[in-house]
């Protein structure tokens, strides 16, 4: 559980630290708070949707952190036999990196209101992600063909479950991507999708980071 505990300690320290900064040196019973007429003191200066996404990312990190903690605890038991990761995973990782780069470019283009680049960027990002997901399915088939079944060893079970959960989160992102792309292709301007593109970009970078972490863990164990 060490991993999860460290992660949670960081999150809780951030949250509690921020909250404490809002609460120290205040005299709430005073009516004349010099800051009271500033709009919502203590409101973070970002769009609510971004706060929502960041909170969701914290939840997902907790989820993966707990899976990893379980992975490490289970690994120590006698019957663990590491599996040989298919080489295809390297290609898949590359695709996900490309997807992230495409989203990053789209984000810049949306800021500069370059509609054509936004369209191409979104399509490129989406295609790379779909290819990544298909690639993961192929990797599953390869493992199955090589005799690494889900139930034959806990290392295999964890491989399938971690890649599946990661893939499902990408699929969730693809829903927002599909809505945004449809809007752009049916005539919305770059400004109106800027926030959605930004949210997608952050989410894709995050899921890339999760994948890199997972892949590194799978390779090293």
């Amino acid at each position: 559980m060490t991993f999860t505990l460290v992660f949670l300690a960081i999150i809780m320290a951030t949250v509690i630290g921020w909250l404490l900064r809002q609460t120290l040196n205040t005299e709430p019973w005073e009516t004349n708070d010099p800051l009271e007429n500033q709009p919502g003191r203590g409101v973070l200066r970002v769009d609510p949707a971004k706060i929502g996404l960041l909170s969701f990312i914290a939840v997902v990190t907790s989820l993966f952190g707990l899976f990893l903690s379980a992975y490490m605890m289970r690994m120590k038991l006698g019957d663990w036999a590491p599996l040989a990761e298919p080489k295809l995973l390297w290609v898949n990782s590359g695709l996900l990196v490309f997807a992230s780069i495409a989203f990053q470019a789209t984000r810049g283009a949306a800021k500069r209101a370059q509609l054509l680049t936004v369209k191409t960027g979104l399509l490129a990002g989406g295609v790379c992600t779909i290819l990544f997901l298909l690639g993961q399915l192929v990797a599953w088939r390869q493992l199955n063909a090589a005799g690494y079944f889900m139930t034959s060893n806990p290392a295999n079970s964890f491989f399938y479950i971690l890649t599946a959960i990661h893939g499902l989160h990408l699929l969730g992102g693809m829903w927002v991507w599909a809505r945004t792309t449809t809007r752009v292709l049916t005539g919305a301007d770059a400004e109106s999708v800027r926030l959605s593109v930004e949210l997608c970009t952050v989410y894709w970078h995050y899921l890339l980071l999760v994948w890199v972490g997972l892949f590194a863990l799978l390779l090293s164990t």
Partner: protein
Amino acid sequence: MAYVAIADRDHEVEHHDPTTFITKYVWSQDHKVIAIQYGITAVFVGLVALVLSGLMRLQLGWPDTFSFITPTDYYQFITMHGMIMVIYLLTALFLGGFGNYLIPLMIGSRDMVFPFMNMLSYWVYLLSVIILLASFFVPGGPTGAGWTLYPPQAILPGTPGTDWGIVLMLGSLAVFIVAFTMGGLNYVTTILQARARGMTLMRMPLSLWGIFMATILGLLAFPALFVSAVMMTLDKAVGTSFFMPAIMSMGETLEHTGGSPILFQHLFWFFGHPEVYIVALPAFGLVSDLLSTHARKNIFGYRMMVWAILAIGGLSFIVWAHHMYVSGMNPYFGFFFATTTLIIAVPTAIKVYNWVLTLWQGNIHLTVPMLFAIAFIFTFTHGGLTGIFLGNVVVDLPLSDTYFVVAHFHMVMGVSPVLVVFGSIYHWYPKMTGRMFNQSLGKWHFWLTFIGVYLIYLPMHYLGFLGVPRRYFAMGDTAFMPESAFELNQAITISALFVGVVQLIFIYNMISSLKNGEKADPNPWRATTLEWQTPDNPPKHGNWGHDLPEVHRWAYDYSVPGYHDDFIPQNVPANPDIPAHDDGSH
């Protein structure tokens, strides 16, 4: 573009006005309607769990009497009772119910930040409840694994409901967590981003602090339950060995190898302990506001109350293994977790002292909500003290599997939060419905419930000291149990059934007052917080009419010396007629 807070661009925000009956009351995106939907569903499912506990008590009071209660039924009742009460009633009611109703009203906002997701949260919650209740109707019935669902027994034949029940239970939990996450992201974001002008974090009522911190805990802790539910489902359905060790069942060697049941326990309690505070923190917050309002006095040590909530939230993640002392853990671990458990008692005790000091020299109005709030201080202190007993490894080991533990957690996490639920429903009923409830029925409900629960749970501590084991269907002939213990069990059953029936008074009162209750004053308790200052009672869609309120003071300006009223609402501006606080009494 510089960032402009939501409260300052109110005119730009869409207000999704409902136009039809369906969008107004069924697929509603209004936080108040969603809150009531959550509340009614939670109370309904809670009543199912209450009936189950009555059936269990019948069996315990008069074993060998009721042929319709078999051991299988008994274990199914235990499991469903526990899980429903903790997750589907208390968590859903405090956060989905009170959280939804109070957050936008108390911070002076028109609604949640993501109303559509809020609506979705309720319907997904309802789906999880339906999946859960469906397990009563499948072959083999619901799971009887105990609410902690420990493997390997939870999924092995011999335990009730291993065909369908356990799968439905795990599926329902996963769906519930999805629903909770959608709601939780809303509560956190709304509190952070949608507060009215002047509503600094430190001017928020403590109810909101409790709900806020509990939501953060839920968002970070529920994934642990999700992870364990997914892995156990795979162990059951696919045959993986995450938790399942090499094991023989019914004379056959199963295909599982080398899994770790202790791993499940860690994951489960990593969720399970914060869950205690997910239920307790909103209760702490709500009860603080009830006490302050009905004692006409500012809450004692507001800042300390906030910091205590933060401290409890942080510490609640490092005490989980005190539920696992009997799992054979390393003694140093036990020492560590006993220490953290005793440390978390410090901020909790600070809160109890502050509640009592809020009452000290207050102008106490013994209204129905206040009675429940004061009763909470008793039951919570009582359950908290036995918690300190059990937090110590050496005391826990002999008591762990006895009725002492049952008494402890029912006092601290059953009775106490439920008293706050009742107090809060009575308190906000005039706001939610625009009608007053029947006060004498409310008082009858209070006294019968309060005395009744003590008649149930005080004797259970004694049974625990005798060593009467919990979870047993029947005690049989045992040398260590005197005849009096059996008689006590009968007395407890009579009290439990009595308390169960008494709740009908509450339900009758709530329903009949909807029609017959006198029209409520918009602010019947003369409270300061924003929800009582709405232009309409009950508040209409959008809450605030044309203009959002502006906040000029904290939530606890009660009995301010020199002011003509004994309360100053949060939206009353500071002006020379209202004396400033300069007496240094804070």
